[in-house]
């Protein structure tokens, strides 16, 4: 995964709610389109981050 710029726009702070926008690094000419995910709560924010970063919580998380 290349570099990604993530912007979090908060409509409310606690618990947080708003939109998470992930866009390509402006210097990456192969990058795709911006992706925007709405979230509510810290859980929602964390999961949105996993979604755009492909982190361990993204998608279906296997239970060991």
């Amino acid at each position, binding site marked *: 995964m290349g570099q990604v710029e993530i912007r979090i726009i908060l409509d409310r702070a606690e618990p947080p709610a708003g939109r998470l926008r992930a866009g390509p690094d402006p210097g990456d000419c192969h990058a795709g389109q911006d992706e925007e995910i709405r979230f509510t709560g810290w859980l929602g924010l964390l999961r949105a981050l996993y979604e755009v970063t492909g982190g361990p919580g993204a998608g*279906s998380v296997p239970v060991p």
Partner: protein
Amino acid sequence: MGTLAPVPGIRGRAAEIAVLGDAVDRVVSGRPAVVLIEGEAGIGKTRLLAGVLEDARGRGMQVAAARAEELERTRPFGLVAAAFGCVRSSPDPRRAAIAALLATRGGDRGPITVTSDPGLRFRAVDAFADLAEELALAGPLVIGVDDLQWADPSSLLTLAAVSRRLAYLPVALVGCLRPSPRIPELDRLAGLLLDAGGRILAVRGLTERAVAELVAEAVAAVPGPGLLAGISGAAGNPLFVTELLGALAQEGAIETAGGRAEVAEVTLPPTLRLTILRRLSFLSEDSLQALRAASILGSSFTVTELSATMARPALELSVVLAEGIAGRVLEEYGAVIRFRHDLIRDAIYEDLPLSVRRGLHREAGRRLARTGAPALQVAEQLARGAGQGDAEAIGWLTRAAREAAARSPDVAADLLERAAGLMAPADPGRDRLLAERASSLMVSGRNADALAACRSLLDRDLDPQVDGPVRICLGRALLAQGQVRDALRELEQAGSSPALPGAERAAAWAWAGFARMSLGDLDGAAASAEQARSAAAAAADHLTVSVAMTTLARVSESRGHLRDALQITDEAMHLADESPGRLGHRYPIRATRGHILIELGRPEEARSALGAGMRISEEIGVRWPLLLYQGFLALERFITGEWDDAIAELEASFELADEIQTVVARAHGILSLISLHRNDLSRAEEAADAAARDLARWGPGYLTTWAAWPRALIQEAGGELGQALATMTGAWDTCARLGLALDYPAVGADLVRLALASGDIGRARDASAAVTEVAARNEVPWMTGAALRCRGLIEDDAEILQAAAGACAGGSRPLGLALACEDAGAAFARQGRLDRARPLLDQALGIYERLGAARDLARAEATLREAGIRRGRRGTRGRPQTGWASLTPAEHAVAGLVAEGLSNPQIGERLYISRRTVQTHLAHMFAKLDIATRAQLAADVTRHRGSEPADTADSAGG
């Protein structure tokens, strides 16, 4: 989720475990133990409690355990019912009966309310205490209650009652609580438990070493310095540590190599809550949705409830919840599933936006209502989701309050307050709800809150139909606080309201009559009571008929017309017997009847009436009449010379008075007199002060004598003769002004003595004439004796004084008999007729010895010495202070029944005494015999059985 070892064992809590182990050891040895485990959320209280309960089970002990829940603070007796397994389906009939009691409803007439059944709450408290006692009599019992900060007020009240009752049984009470929130009931319970020898176990953060051990166990490797440094941010809170480790493990941040676990960097979230959320964020979305919905239901829930709330099949949810259980978010606990920790639930719940939370609560409430869930559960959900003016939530809160009222009036009051809070100020129903709330507060004993609620309502321009009941409530709350004049004003204002329905107007007059009686306004009391009786009879209000007629009997009694008074109680008893459900007996007619019988010199009948009345009060669970019964039983024991037993009754009544925050002037007066006669002047003064304090709020009235009489005798003992006479004449003149003639024979001789000693012959003659008139009217031996004694003292006539002793000998008042004998003996001695003096003085001395009346004994011995008379054959000495021979007849009886394995309620029933008095007898016996358990007492009984019986025939009768 996660790659950690199963939940690590308890670390770094050796000292705490030792304290808890000691508690279990104490119980094994037959003694009680109380430990309150206090500490912040997540610090490990629940683990410690689980450990001690496991230890107890391992040793074959009985365990009753439960955890209180934040969303169930309004479920009356919820915690204790869960702990003792009281469900309708219980195979144990005692438990099933308690469950049935808690589910009591009024059948077709709707739910039982505080008005229809004011005693249900205390019946339930007593039923739990009885059950706990029976369990403990069978073997050691450990009661474990977690999260006491969320416990409902009735459960806290029950735990207090249980702890008092179990003082000499092998029972441990182990409770966990956070430093906050703390409701007043919890503070009261904690104070009571600590006063009774319980201890606080303050649980703090783990040491660094303990944290290192915990981490090592969790990661199954030696933790490296980076990992430990990062974890140190958890401040030794074990939940924080394990949650953080869980999050790190899920992120794959912990690397283990060569038996060493390390992280490159620990990014510690700023709070435990975010740490928990960080770990939960790895769960599937389906699981998270279920957890969010579950968090709306509280810390625990059933799959059925969740299924109803989410409108999803239970089977499908079971699969989803399995992920939460595997991920240590949830755990199964009997029939319910609960969050592994309240903080996990809170983190999920608080992560929902407020508007979403409210919507989910509202939806859950509606869905639960459709499934027939209890009103309280539905109301709790709807209230949390409600906005201003939400009629649905208001309706359910009101319904839940009325259902809860009889079992837990505090809960009802809180629910009604919430309902009223949702109503617009102009809503016409709002004041009615607030009036109902005030009544619940009054019944629950929260008098100060009830007063504030009533006054706040009355500050406004109330609907006349609400104004009356609020004033009656205010009047009764003021009466309960001893503010009789203020109470009277409110009650009479209510009674004069034309908008008040007949039955309520009758109640206002009846209680106004009660207030006037307490103030000593006999004419006013009689007038109000007559008015109340007619109105109540017309309205078929049987309880109010009893209140009114009892006041009429008290008026006659106080005027010194004992037979008329007895006849009124006969009639009142008959009407109460005939009333539906014997409702009329809910008012303590028998207390007044018992008092009249005492004054008529019929102590056996008095005891029987008082004992039976007390049984009824205990059965219906109304506590304040118990104070009357205990007070009159103490009076009867005092008068008949069983002073130690009188003290046991008095101590039980002081404890109860303290508990229900009311006044017991007469009881303090009796204790003062006993202490004075026993030459314990400091205790006599303390008790006289307490009596005066209790009466101070009333002003001079009905019980004036009970503060003034002992005070005057104490002043006489201190050589302040003039002051003593002034005190006595002050009280006498108050009685004369108010027409309280019944007090004359009791105190007349002392006034005559003091007046003669001060040279006030006129006062002495007036007093004597008044006593003679009352005595002639009633023809009771002790009164005749008192009248003759007054005359004999004035005329210094030994023959009349001997006649006084003769009259007293026909009664059952040993102290009065001894005093008459002493006066007669002294008079004969002054005449030099020593042959007549000696037997009289000997008789007085014998009685004083048996009573333990050291002060009177010393005075009579001095008279004997001054006359140069050698004492004849000595009578039986008073009881020793300690050892088996020191036990009183009542204590012997209690000890025998303890040895038969009877519980306190069973003993109380056999002996016609209250459960509290049984407890007081036990406390006295344990101190006298230097033992700590019922088992030791039973062993002592067995040891002494067959040997020389203790002198139980030395009751101080003449």
